[in-house]
């Protein structure tokens, strides 16, 4: 197992009172939850990753790129690769046990959102007439499921060796007490109310691949919440990039990647 910890900033007194009154778990508003991740978590997949974002736990397996099977001929895009995403939640992932339904609306929506973000980084044009499967399984859901899923997908795609433009990283942000922006919202914080903004971005080129809001924001707040979410993405990028480099240092890589 490979664990990467974010270095935590020092807590200030005012924050202590603040955290207490917002009912959070003693995290500063600008701190991410603890991120732990592992590449190559599923042996029989072409690429895979396991990622924990606080208590949210996600497993992603990538299969491919492989040639499209005959029964999927209709989907073939002769010019580029076909990306097949699938997002699902384990029956035990939420507070109450639930039997998964095949055409769950929520899961389908998440699948589409994931697809949108991944499409922007996968260099599908290099792999014509192929298919890439990205299978996401949420093991424990505790807020920020989309972020965990997307970040883990990035790792798994890297593990599988799929050509990417760059990383795609997601993070959430919200407003505490209606005024203080805070990053990486846990389920508890989600239920405390307040709108939640999800941003997926390409950290190097600073492009935004996807955004979603759970509720209406007042325009006055949008800017700072957006900035907070982007800052969260950048912090997350550092952790994930570090994890990738450590992983390849361990298993070795032809170009001495991660060795420098």
């Amino acid at each position, binding site marked *: 197992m490979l664990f990467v910890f974010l270095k*935590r*900033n*020092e*807590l*200030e*007194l005012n924050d*202590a*009172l603040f*955290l*207490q009154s917002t009912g959070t*778990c*003693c*995290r500063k508003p600008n701190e991410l*939850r*603890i991120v732990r991740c592992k590449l190559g978590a599923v042996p029989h997949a072409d690429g895979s990753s396991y990622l924990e974002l*606080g*208590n949210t736990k996600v497993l992603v397996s990538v299969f491919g790129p492989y040639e499209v099977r005959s029964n999927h001929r209709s989907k073939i895009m002769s010019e580029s690769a076909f990306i097949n995403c699938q997002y699902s939640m384990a029956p*035990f992932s939420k*507070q*109450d*046990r639930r039997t998964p339904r095949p055409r769950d609306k929520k899961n389908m929506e998440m699948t589409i959102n994931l697809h949108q973000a991944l499409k922007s980084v996968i260099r599908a044009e290099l792999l014509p007439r192929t298919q890439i499967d990205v299978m996401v399984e949420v093991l*424990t859901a*505790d807020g920020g499921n989309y972020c965990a899923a997307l970040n883990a997908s990035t790792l798994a795609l890297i593990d599988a060796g799929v050509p990417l433009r760059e990383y795609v990283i997601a993070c959430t942000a919200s407003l505490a007490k*209606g005024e203080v922006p805070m990053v990486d919202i*846990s389920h*508890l914080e989600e239920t405390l109310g307040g709108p939640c903004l999800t941003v997926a971005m390409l950290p190097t080129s600073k492009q935004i691949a996807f955004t979603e809001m759970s509720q209406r*924001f*007042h325009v*006055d*707040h949008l800017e700072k919440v957006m900035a907070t979410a982007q800052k969260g993405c950048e912090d997350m990028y550092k952790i994930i990039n570090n994890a990738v480099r450590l992983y390849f240092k361990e298993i070795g890589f032809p170009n001495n990647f991660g060795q420098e």
Partner: protein
Amino acid sequence: MLKQKTFFRTNKKGDILKVVREHYLREDIWCGSRACGVCKAKDNEKVLDAKPKSKSAAVGEDHYIFLDTNAILDQIDALEDPHLTNLVILQTVMEEVKHRSSAAYKRLHEVTLDKSRKCYVFVNEHRFETFVERKQGETTNDRNDRAIRVAALWYQNHLHIKSVLLTDDAENRRKAQEMGLIAKPLSEYAEGTDSPTLCERLSSKRWGELRDEDQTKAYTPHLPMSAIQAGIKAGKLFKGPYFASRDNCLEATVKLDKRDVLLQGKASLNRAIDGDTVVVEILPESEWKAPSNLVVTSEDTDDVLEDASAEKQPTGRVVGIINRKFQQFCGILQVSPVAGHTRHLFVPAKRHIPKIRIETRQSERLADQRIVVAIDGWPVESKYPQGHFVRALGKIGDQETENEVLLLEHDIPCYKFSEAVLADLPDNDWTISDEELAKRQNLKNIVICSVDPPGCTDIDDALHCFELPNGNYEAGVHIADVSHFIRPGTNIDKEAAHRATTVYLTDQRIDMVPDLLSSNLCSLRGGEERLAFSCVWELSPQAEIISTRYHKSVIKSAAALTYGEAQAKIEDDTDQTAVATSLRCLYKLAKILKQRRIDNGALTLASPEIRFRIDPKTKEPLEVVAKPLLGTMSMVEEFMLLANVSVAEKILLEFPECALLRRHPEPPPMNFDPLIKAAGHQGFNIDASTGKNLSLSLDNAVKENDPYFNTMLRILTTRCMQQALYFSSGMTQKEMFFHYGLAAPIYTHFTSPIRRYSDVIVHRLLAACIGADVTYSDLLDKRKTDDLCGNLNYRKRMAQYAARASVMLHTHLFFRNKTELEEGYILFVKKNALQILIPKYGLEGTVILSSKDKNKPSPFEYNSDNHTQSAGDVVFHSFDRVVVQMSLDRSNVQHEKLQLKLVEPEVPGFSITTEGELVPAVEDTCG
């Protein structure tokens, strides 16, 4: 370091839920002491002294004070005493306090913010070393106590300064001492200090045995919490708020969802106090009773008399108290007759609050003072609740003291504006900038004038009107642009939102915004350029609205008139100035508007209003003047109503989810029963099925020979009404928007932003509608608006009560050395009393119909069918005219009462001749 808390709990449906919570343990939570060289806290975060000198003889060494949860909950008043400093409040304690009492938490929070107290909140649950995991079989309470001890020990080892744990729990103290901590009961610690007030403020919970005179067997123990919950679940017990009766101290009601439960007698009340949330058991139907209709003011009797005539109500008894509303009460000390006793009875000013036993050593000094006391609890074997002294207000009967009591009792924020608030004000020599002028419509050359009561310095509205070439009229209402000065989120804004309204008392005004705004920059004074928010209509000669415009403007009022001056100008035909013609147009249109409103079913109600002429030096009331009713008053009112309705429509259109509106619910039909009955006895039929019918039947109920009869009916009708309320349009169903009294489908308050915060919000909404200002998030948040409305409604109600109480206080001052014969009218005939309204003073009093000599039977006979009292050939009906003698009964220093004694009609053995023997015991119920 991350700790995971996983636990399972069941939800309402019985499903099992897995809850996983993160819990971070960190090393960067500092101790907050100046003595510390290890922690990397910033200087301003170090609040605890490096050498915390001991202030109590109970502990010799320097130390920091730690408190456990119960010590804080029980002794919050003592904790607020500034004598205790260098406190460490642990997060464990803070959270427990928050969980158990939000009021105590709020006060504790205030203490922690007070810099002079050197009070540090230590987040011990997240500090690596002080986090304590619950052991197998350990209760949460035990675990929390252990967490407190562990944290105190950590401080002691970390700083090498003693930690003193103050707790009333002996077991906790023993364990703490085993660990090497100093542990004391708070009372022992407080008694060792040289502060005179700290000990007085200690809770009575530490008292041991009760004295004989306090013992009683009247009460039964409350059920344990588990039994209560099971009972509620099984539908046998019911939970609801407890309201003590204002007239009868042995009666109370508990409001349940569907019905009200009547509680009668001490045993049934079972130690509940007004404002508590209680659990009641409903008695079998055979024991259901009607409210007693009696006025009982002495706690010493326990005979509940039944009124057979009224409808029976479910009765019940209190079996448990879920939530005590621990409040502070004003009152006086009833010094114990035994010399040297330290326990005395405290008599609250509010009659529906029982007497409270307190302990004080300064009884002599406090005997003639108004004091504030808090209740600590009410043991089952005790006759009285037990409490403790909080502070003294001043000498009884002093106008200043009584005023303070009044403000305190109505929870009116009357402290001076803070520096932070004053810093938000514009400069004294503020003028309108050219930039501002360019953004606004310039109405300086239009003849605008204001009409207000005499002596008004916060003029927030002005009017204009002239005839247009096409025969229509242009009429405008200009309101002080307060939202220009009070920007959202500033300190001044927060303060105004907290105060919510300006409070008008007889001899003072407690402003919502500082004087510079209320009496100067926002006041539309004559001849000065002012910023205004204008609402301008084109009205047809029939006063129909053809078009409406809203804009921010600059105006220069031509004249600030009083109602009387304006009336004179209108009536003086020779006066052809622009102001006079403008007023005449307004007057004409207002008449049509008013008629239309009344035709639609708006009610004209009456409430007796009087004013005191006050000696400017001594502030003593000199004489009583009835408020005159002038046509110009209703003229201004009509246009304000028109503006309010127009603005309400506009903001609801633009902001259907978050408009702040005002509604007046239609009263439930049964509210009108007393009115209909009373009028019925006089041969008039009141139809209260709709507002319109009510209005019509009131108009028709006129007695030729008794002009005051109609006014009385209207006074009674006012009593049937419900309170009008502010609300957020997004949180209320559309059908409920209606304003019953004004017969308006929607209504809001726009016209008095200087003295009402609701109007400030409405101004902001309207400004956003017309693009003159930007919105901000709280303005568009319907929940925030709704919360705000809650406060506005509360403050408004309190301000009304305070104003009434202030009039009462001045009436009493006025009658101190007087006895007068006055004409009065019987408002209600009760079983043992007559309630009498005295129009001249606008006050009500009660004449209790019993002989003073208890052995003699009362000469009166009550007829419950038609609500009359008769003695011989004299029969008293509602609305009958009587003559009473008024004087002030000062025998009870706390409740100076207006005494009414019947003079006419003559009832032998009861009524008095002006010099003769005084018999009846009489008192007023307005206080």
